[in-house]
C-alpha cells in the first residue's frame, strides 16, 4: 500500500462520513480529519526541512505517465504553514459555524469543501507533475468556491463567488498554456521537463514561460493588476474561510512562483527587476486602497494584497541575488519571503477571526457603524490589536522580523549596484517605508473606530464577547506571533534548507555560512524582548505609583460641552479625510453630496464609495466591450426549446461530418494533383 493511497483513502472516508453524522458532529469530524491530514503530511514535511526530502513515484496511467510526488524543503515549509492555519481555521470554524446549525446540507458541503481545499493545497505543494498539479489546482479552486458561497442567499455573496470562479479559471488557463508549451516540446509532464526545456533555449523563452505561469499564479496570489477578485471574495466568505483563504490559499500562488523559480532557467536579474517593480506597486496600491475602505473585511482583503506585495519584493530581491551571484542577498530575499508567508498567514487569519467575532456580535462589517466594542469584547480587541501591531511590522511581533530581513536585503544589495538596480532599490525603500506608514494609518483607523471610543449605532442585541472555545485558537496564534518576534533566529534557521535550494545558480557550493543574517536577528530578538520588558516595567511602576493617588472618572473633555458626545466622535471617514483628499487624483473615489441649501434646510449628506481604478480599467471596461459585442448574437438565445435542440443537432452533425468532408476534400486535391 503506498502512502499516497492511504492519504487519499483517509480523505475519501471522511468525505463520505460527514453527511451521515449529526449536525453537531460534522465540525468535529472535519476538525479531526484536518488534524489527521496535518499529522500525516507533517512527517515528510519536517523531514524535508531537516534535509531528508521525500520522494515517491506514482505509477499513473498511460496518459499521465509516472507521477512524481516530491516533498522538498520548499514544499515542506508550505505544508507546515498550511497545516497550522488550517487547524486553527477548523478549530475556530467549528465554533463559528454553530450559529448556522439549521442549514444541515450546507454545513456538510462546507465541511467537505474545507477538507478538499486542504487536501488539494497539500497535493499542489507535493505534486511535481503538471497534469496532476492542474487537477489538484482545480479541486482546490472549485472547493474554495463552495467555501465562499456559504451564505448563498445573499446576492453579493453569489456575485463574489462567481467573480472568483471565473478569475480562478483564467488563472488555470494561463497555467495550462504554460505547461502545455513545455509538454509539447519535451513530451513529459514532469516538472523537471521545465528545466530541460528552458536550459536549451535562449533566456527570453524562459522569461516568456515564466511570465505566462507567473500571471496565472499572480491571479491566485493577488498581485496588482490581477487582484480584483480578492476584495470581493474575502468579505463574502465566513470568517474562518476568509482567514484561511487570505492566510494560506492565496499563498499557494506564492508557492507556485517560488517553485517555478526553481525550475525555469532564465536571466534572473531581469526577472528580479520585473518582480520587484510589480511588487512595490502591488504593496503600495493595496494599502492605499485599504485605508479608504468602509467594510472591515474588505479592508483586510486589501491588506492581503499589500502583504503579497511585500512577499513579492522579497522574492524579487532573491532573484536579483541569484542574477548577481550574491549568496547573502539570495538568503535574505528568499528567507524574508518564506518567513513573511508564515507571518502573514498567522496575523491575517487572526485578524479575520477577530473580524468574525465582530460580525457575529453586531451583524455588520461597516466600520462607520461600529465603535466602543472594547468594553463588550475586551479579548477580541486585544487580539485584533496584537495582530494589527504585527501586520504593521512593529516590534516585538513577527511582522517586523520579515520586513527587517527585506530591508537588510535591500541594504546589502546597494553596494556595487548599477543605476537601474539602484533606482529600483530606492523605489523599494521608499515603497516599504511608505507601506509601513500607510499600514499604521490604516490599522489605527480600524482599531480606533471599530473597538475604541463609544458606540456609534444602536444594535438590536447587545454585542457580547465570544466564548473561550473561539478565543483559544486565536491565543495559540498570538503565542507564535510573539515567539517569532522574540526568537527570530530559531525560525529563520529553520528556513536554511528551503533557501539552500535557491543557491543552485549563484555559487554552486551552497551558501557560505548559510545565514549571515541569523546573528543580526538575535539583535532584533533582544531588542524586542527588552522593549517588552521595559514597557511592562514602566507600566507596572506607573500602576504602583498611581494606585496611591486620587483617581477620578469623568466625561471626555469636549471643550466644555457636557451632552452626549457619541455622535461627535471622529469617524473612520473623518480620520482618513486628509489622506483621501491627497490621493483622490490617483484613486477613484465616488462621491455623492447633498449640500445644505435654503433658509430651512431639510436633509443633507455626503457619501463616499471607494472604487478600484485598476478594476474599472482592466475588468469593467473590457467586460463592457465584450457584452456589447456578444449582445449582437442575442437573437440566438430566443427562448425556444426547438431552436436549442436544433443547435445541438447542428453541432453534432458538424462534429461528425466535418472530418469526413475534410478527408474527401484532401483526397480530391490529391487526386487533382496526381493528374
Amino acid at each position, binding site marked *: 500500500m503506498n502512502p499516497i493511497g492511504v492519504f487519499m483513502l483517509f480523505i475519501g472516508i471522511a468525505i463520505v462520513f460527514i453527511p451521515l453524522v449529526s449536525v453537531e458532529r460534522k465540525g468535529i469530524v472535519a476538525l479531526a480529519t484536518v488534524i489527521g491530514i496535518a499529522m500525516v503530511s507533517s512527517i515528510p514535511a519536517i523531514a524535508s526541512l531537516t534535509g531528508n526530502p521525500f520522494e515517491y513515484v506514482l505509477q499513473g496511467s498511460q496518459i499521465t505517465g509516472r507521477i512524481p510526488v516530491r516533498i522538498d524543503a520548499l514544499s515542506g515549509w508550505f505544508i507546515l504553514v498550511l497545516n497550522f492555519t488550517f487547524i486553527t481555521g477548523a478549530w475556530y470554524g467549528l465554533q463559528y459555524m454553530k450559529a448556522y446549525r439549521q442549514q444541515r446540507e450546507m454545513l456538510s458541503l462546507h465541511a467537505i469543501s474545507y477538507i478538499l481545499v486542504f487536501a488539494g493545497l497539500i497535493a499542489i505543494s507535493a505534486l511535481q507533475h503538471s497534469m496532476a498539479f492542474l487537477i489538484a489546482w482545480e479541486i482546490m479552486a472549485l472547493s474554495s468556491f463552495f467555501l465562499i458561497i456559504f451564505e448563498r442567499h445573499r446576492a453579493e455573496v453569489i456575485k463574489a463567488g462567481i467573480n472568483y470562479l471565473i478569475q480562478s479559471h483564467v488563472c488555470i488557463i494561463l497555467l495550462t498554456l504554460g505547461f502545455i508549451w513545455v509538454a509539447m516540446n519535451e513530451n513529459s509532464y514532469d516538472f523537471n521537463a521545465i528545466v530541460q526545456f528552458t536550459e536549451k533555449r535562449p533566456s527570453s523563452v524562459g522569461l516568456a514561460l515564466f511570465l505566462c505561469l507567473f500571471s496565472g499564479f499572480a491571479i491566485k496570489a493577488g498581485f496588482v493588476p490581477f487582484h480584483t477578485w480578492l476584495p470581493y471574495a474575502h468579505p463574502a466568505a465566513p470568517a474562518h474561510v476568509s482567514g484561511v483563504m487570505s492566510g494560506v490559499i492565496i499563498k499557494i500562488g506564492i508557492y507556485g512562483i517560488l517553485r517555478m523559480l526553481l525550475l525555469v532557467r532564465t536571466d534572473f536579474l531581469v526577472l528580479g527587476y520585473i518582480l520587484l517593480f510589480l511588487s512595490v506597486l502591488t504593496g503600495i496600491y493595496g494599502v492605499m486602497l485599504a485605508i479608504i475602505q468602509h467594510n472591515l473585511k474588505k479592508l483586510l482583503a486589501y491588506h492581503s494584497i499589500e502583504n503579497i506585495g511585500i512577499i513579492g519584493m522579497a522574492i524579487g530581491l532573491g532573484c536579483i541575488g541569484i542574477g548577481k551571484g550574491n549568496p547573502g542577498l539570495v538568503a535574505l530575499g528568499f528567507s524574508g519571503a518564506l518567513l513573511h508567508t508564515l507571518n502573514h498567514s498567522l496575523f491575517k487569519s487572526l485578524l479575520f477571526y477577530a473580524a468574525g467575532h465582530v460580525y457575529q456580535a453586531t451583524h455588520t462589517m461597516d466600520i462607520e457603524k461600529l465603535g466602543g466594542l472594547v468594553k463588550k469584547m475586551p479579548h477580541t*480587541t486585544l487580539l485584533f490589536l496584537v495582530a494589527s501591531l504585527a501586520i504593521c511590522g512593529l516590534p516585538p511581533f513577527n511582522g517586523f522580523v520579515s520586513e527587517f530581513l527585506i530591508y537588510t536585503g535591500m541594504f546589502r544589495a546597494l553596494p556595487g549596484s548599477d543605476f537601474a538596480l*539602484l533606482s529600483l532599490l530606492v523605489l523599494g*525603500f521608499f515603497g516599504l517605508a511608505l507601506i509601513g506608514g500607510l499600514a499604521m494609518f490604516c490599522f489605527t483607523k480600524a482599531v*480606533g473606530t471599530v473597538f475604541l471610543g463609544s458606540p456609534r449605532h444602536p444594535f438590536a442585541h447587545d454585542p457580547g464577547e465570544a466564548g473561550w472555545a473561539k478565543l483559544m485558537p486565536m491565543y495559540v496564534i498570538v503565542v507564535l506571533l510573539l515567539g517569532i518576534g522574540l526568537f527570530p533566529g530559531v525560525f529563520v534557521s529553520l528556513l536554511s534548507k528551503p533557501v539552500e535550494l535557491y543557491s543552485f545558480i549563484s555559487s554552486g557550493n551552497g551558501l557560505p555560512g548559510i545565514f549571515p543574517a541569523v546573528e543580526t536577528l538575535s539583535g*532584533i530578538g533582544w531588542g524586542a524582548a527588552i*522593549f517588552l520588558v521595559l514597557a511592562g516595567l514602566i507600566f507596572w511602576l506607573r500602576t504602583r505609583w498611581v494606585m496611591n493617588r486620587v483617581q477620578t472618572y469623568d466625561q471626555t473633555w469636549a471643550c466644555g460641552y457636557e451632552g452626549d458626545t457619541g455622535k461627535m466622535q*471622529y469617524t473612520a471617514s473623518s480620520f482618513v479625510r486628509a489622506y483621501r483628499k491627497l490621493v483622490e487624483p490617483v484613486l477613484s473615489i465616488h462621491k455623492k453630496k447633498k449640500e445644505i441649501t435654503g433658509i430651512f434646510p431639510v436633509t443633507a449628506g455626503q457619501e463616499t464609495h471607494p472604487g478600484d481604478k485598476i478594476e474599472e480599467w482592466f475588468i469593467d471596461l473590457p467586460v463592457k466591450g465584450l457584452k456589447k459585442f456578444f449582445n449582437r448574437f442575442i437573437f440566438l438565445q430566443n427562448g425556444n426549446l426547438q431552436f436549442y435542440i436544433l443547435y445541438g443537432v447542428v453541432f453534432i452533425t458538424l462534429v461528425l461530418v466535418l472530418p469526413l468532408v475534410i478527408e474527401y476534400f484532401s483526397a480530391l486535391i490529391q487526386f487533382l494533383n496526381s493528374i
Partner: protein
Amino acid sequence: MISFILIILMSLIFTGIVIRTKSITSGRKGPGIFQPLKDLARLFKKGSVYSQTTSFIFQLAPSVYLASILMAVLVIPLGQYKGILSFEGDFVFFAYVLGAGKFFSILSAMDTGSSFEGMGASREALFSMFAEPAFFLLMGSFALLTGYTSFQQIFHSLHFGSSVSYVLMVLATYVLVMIALIENSRMPIDDPKTHLELTMVHEVMVLDNSGFDLGMILYGTPLKLAMYGGLIANLFMGDFPLVLTIPIFLGLQIAFAVTVGIIESFMARFRMNHNAQYILTLSSVSLLILLGVLLILGQFN
C-alpha cells in the same frame, strides 16, 4: 552606554533651553532652564482623571510610548562608541520601535472618543507616515556611501572628503532637524503653544491625559528631541576620542535646542492642510542626498 546617559541628561534641560531661547528672543525674563523639570515633577505627584469612555489601551499607551522612545535611544551611538543595542540594520529597528509607540499614542487618542483627539490622531498618523520614507532614504544613502548598515558603523566611517560632502552634511542635518520637529509636532508643523484644538496635532491628542501619564508623555518630547539631537551630533563626530566627542555632543545638542527655540520664535506655523505635501518634500531632499552620494561614488562618470 555613554550616549544613553548623555541623551537622558540632555533631555532634562532640552525644553528648558528652548523656552529660555524663546524668552530671550521675545525680550521676556522667562523661566529658568529647569522649569520644565519642575513642571514634570509636579505632574508626577498629581492624581489623575480618566475619561469614562476609555479602556485599558488608554492606561497602557503612555507607558508603551515612553518605553518605545527609550528603546530608540538605546541604539544611538556616540561617535565610535556603540549604543547599548547595536546590530546590522539597527536603524530599521529604531524607526519601527518609534512607530510602535506612535501606534499606541494614536490609539489612546482614539480611545477617548473625542472629536478633537481624533483630529490630532489623524494628523499625527498622516504626518509620520509621510516622514518615514525620508528617514529611510537618508539612511539608505549613508549605507550606500559607507557600505555599512548600523548606526555606529555608518557614523564611524562617514568620511566627508570632497566638497560635495559638505553640502550633503547640511542637507542631512536639515532632514534630521525637520524629522525631529515633525515627530514632536513642533513649529513649523504644529505650534504646541496654540490653544485652539482645531489646529493642534500632538497637544490635542493628550487632552484627556492627566497626572503621571501626562508627565510621561510630556517627558517624551524632550527625550525624542535629544535623541534626534544625538543623531545629528553623530553626523559630525567621526572617530574622535571621548574627550572630544562629549563636548561636541553636548555643544551640538545645545545648538540644536537653541535652533528649535529660534525657529519657534521667528517662524509662523504652516497651513495645516498643506503640511502633508510639505513633509513629503523632505523625501525629495533625501533624494538629493542620494544623488550627492552617487556623485561622490562616481556613478555619474
